[in-house]
């Protein structure tokens, strides 16, 4: 066994030696993990930061969105998280529960340029657990209605639908335009939980109850929204499957559907696909409200910047957060990635005021509501809501059955949370 001992020892020495290289040429090296295009874009902003802060060097690693969460949590488990990283704002509760990221309240308090007042309220709230803020919004998104002006006009609508009644009415009218053709009015893919949640929130439903420890999907309000959406599938106003739509932009350009609820990342692609005659025939609009005309709620999405709780370079990391949150860099990230800036001030720039598609997003951002801030939310949304929405849309279950099963499954998922609420008093669960 001494041999093995030596092996282990030498391996440990190597690990130790490589771990100690965080200071290069007396410069402090902070590590940043960004996801997808944002990770790529941020590396272009770094030279400017390093020029302003000659003693700090930033190392960026890109991680793909599809594997981001797995990677971050594995990194946490092996104590390898970077000093600072990008986090989808619905993941913040999870990383707070893991005790992996810093409470930024003390830093925000003394910061010259970061203040909750500079951000959209709904977005800022997604970063709060209790009263503590754990992430600084970096870029944001929210879902609005993309629609084909020409098709809606043919159906007798000069304006986009303003409320639920109009939305289903225009959909029915669009459908009658096609008779036997395989075309639809609106695209509501069942593998996108956010649609079901958005309409639920609009109807005033609280998705969970009793301190987020039980499902509340069978409630009258959520059922109203769910049944409303099911009408679109049952009346063939929306396609039930989603495999026919390999490319939503192409489908929209071909008039396969005339309306689509999605986020700002579609704007650029839409522009590319809507060419020639179609160039001016599409628009964005805030979501319709349930009853009276107005703006319905949407989701506050986007990514925040968070700081590792165990970082040695907390101050330097914060400097980088402040740098990325400056109005100039916020515009820069929009130019590089088309991600909407979190900072309200950046929206005053002509780049946004001259972009007609952006108005809807700006208006919609005033009407958002955070999702339940619990670790289990991702699982509830991605696996359970989508599963039962699909079952109901394909009439494998009635609406009541689907919601009953949804609640039962959600209650099972939340069992651990209930146990923790009871037994682990110190736990940051709120």
């Amino acid at each position, binding site marked *: 066994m001494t041999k093995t001992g030596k092996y282990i020892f030498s391996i440990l020495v190597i690990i130790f030696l490589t771990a100690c290289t965080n200071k290069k040429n007396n410069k402090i090296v902070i590590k940043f993990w960004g996801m997808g295009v944002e990770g790529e874009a941020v590396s272009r902003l770094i030279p400017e930061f390093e020029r302003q802060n000659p003693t700090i060097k930033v190392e960026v690693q890109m991680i793909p969105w599809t594997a981001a969460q*797995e990677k971050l949590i594995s990194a946490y488990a092996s104590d390898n998280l970077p000093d600072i990283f990008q986090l989808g704002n619905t993941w913040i509760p999870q990383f707070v*529960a*893991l005790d992996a990221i810093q409470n930024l309240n003390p830093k925000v308090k003394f910061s010259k340029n970061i203040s909750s007042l500079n951000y959209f309220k709904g977005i800022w709230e997604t970063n709060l657990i209790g009263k503590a803020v754990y992430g600084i919004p970096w870029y944001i998104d929210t879902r609005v209605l993309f629609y084909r002006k020409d098709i809606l006009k043919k159906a007798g609508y000069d304006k986009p639908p303003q409320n639920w009644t109009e939305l289903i009415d225009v959909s029915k009218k669009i459908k009658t335009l096609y008779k036997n053709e395989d075309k639809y009015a609106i695209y509501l893919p069942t593998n996108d939980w956010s649609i079901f949640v958005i309409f639920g929130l609009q109807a005033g439903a609280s998705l969970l109850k009793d301190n987020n420890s039980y499902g509340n999907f069978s409630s009258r309000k959520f059922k109203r929204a769910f049944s409303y959406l099911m009408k679109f599938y049952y009346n063939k106003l929306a396609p039930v499957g989603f495999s026919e739509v390999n490319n939503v932009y192409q489908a929209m350009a071909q008039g396969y559907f005339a309306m689509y609820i999605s986020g700002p990342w579609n704007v650029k692609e839409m522009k590319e696909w809507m060419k020639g005659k179609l160039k001016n025939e599409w628009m964005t609009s805030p979501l319709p409200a349930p009853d009276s005309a107005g703006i319905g709620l949407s989701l506050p999405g986007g990514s925040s910047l968070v700081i590792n709780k165990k970082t040695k370079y907390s101050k330097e990391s914060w400097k980088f957060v402040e740098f990325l949150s400056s109005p100039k860099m916020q515009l820069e990230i929009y130019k590089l990635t088309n991600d909407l800036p979190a900072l309200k001030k950046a929206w005053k720039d002509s780049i946004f005021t001259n972009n007609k598609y952006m108005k809807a997003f700006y208006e919609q951002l005033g009407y958002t509501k955070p999702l339940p801030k619990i670790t289990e939310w991702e699982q509830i949304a991605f696996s359970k809501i989508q599963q039962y929405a699909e079952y109901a849309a394909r009439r*494998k279950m009635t609406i009541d059955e689907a919601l009953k099963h949804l609640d039962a499954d959600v209650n099972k998922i939340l069992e651990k949370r209930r146990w923790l609420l009871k037994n682990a008093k110190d736990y940051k669960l709120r």
Partner: protein
Amino acid sequence: MKLKNSTTSAAYIFLTPALSAIFIFFFIPVLAAFIMSFTDFDIYSLSDFGRARFIGFDNYLQLFNDPLFWKALANTFYYVLIAGPLSIFVSLSAALLLNDKLLKFKSIFRLTYFMPVVTTLVAVAIVWRFIYHPKFGILNYLLGFFGIGNIDWLGDPHYALPAIILMSVWKNFGYNMIIFIAGLQNIPEYLYEAATLDGANKWQQFKNITLPMLAPTTLFITIITMIGFFQVFAEPYIMTQGGPLDSTLSIVLYMYREGFRWWNMGYSAAIAFVLFLIILIATIIQFKIQKKSAML
């Protein structure tokens, strides 16, 4: 233990690195996973082990009451029972054709059939998604000539799994084919010559010489293919993410989802051990069948 002479002790010393690597990186994790399958280890427990509860057989009991697990199990068996024999049939046929003396340009054919095996699955999946496209896909276009209407291959719960089976057989048969070719080339030529002299036709030669002589190869391929198909993951993961209506959800995909998407590690470990047991039993059965047929 007592070492009898210097040769054995030298052997042990040389084996130590390999054995300790296996011990550290295989046995310990397997044991840890086994213990984990009796706890509710989840994301909360990552930061504080005290938040994992020892729950005995609850994970296993819950598994047996989990409709999704049964669905995944049924899908996996469907996959193994259809794709397994199909894949072996296709690869054996291809091997026989490629081994024929009359065939020219053998290496080109061999290369072509082996190509899908070495192609990245992601690239293959993208191409097949287009082949399967309900409106513009070439498959539906070709089927149109036979008067078969548009099939939503990946979107219809009845067709999604067969579609994935078709793709993975196409992708994987080349590998088994190469092994079969090697097996075929090991069969001495004089057996066929003797059989020809005795007046045996091609089919009789195949039945009485090729098949029995290939038996060990076939056993190896059957087991490897079966285990591989039991562990099917990447194909549904990339093509359909388990949908539509969970019709392509496989056991390993379900295990992955529970473990690395939702971090229910305890539950996920329980799924892994159930799958292990199933594969073990299936392998034993195959050995038994093969032995019996060898004795006949």
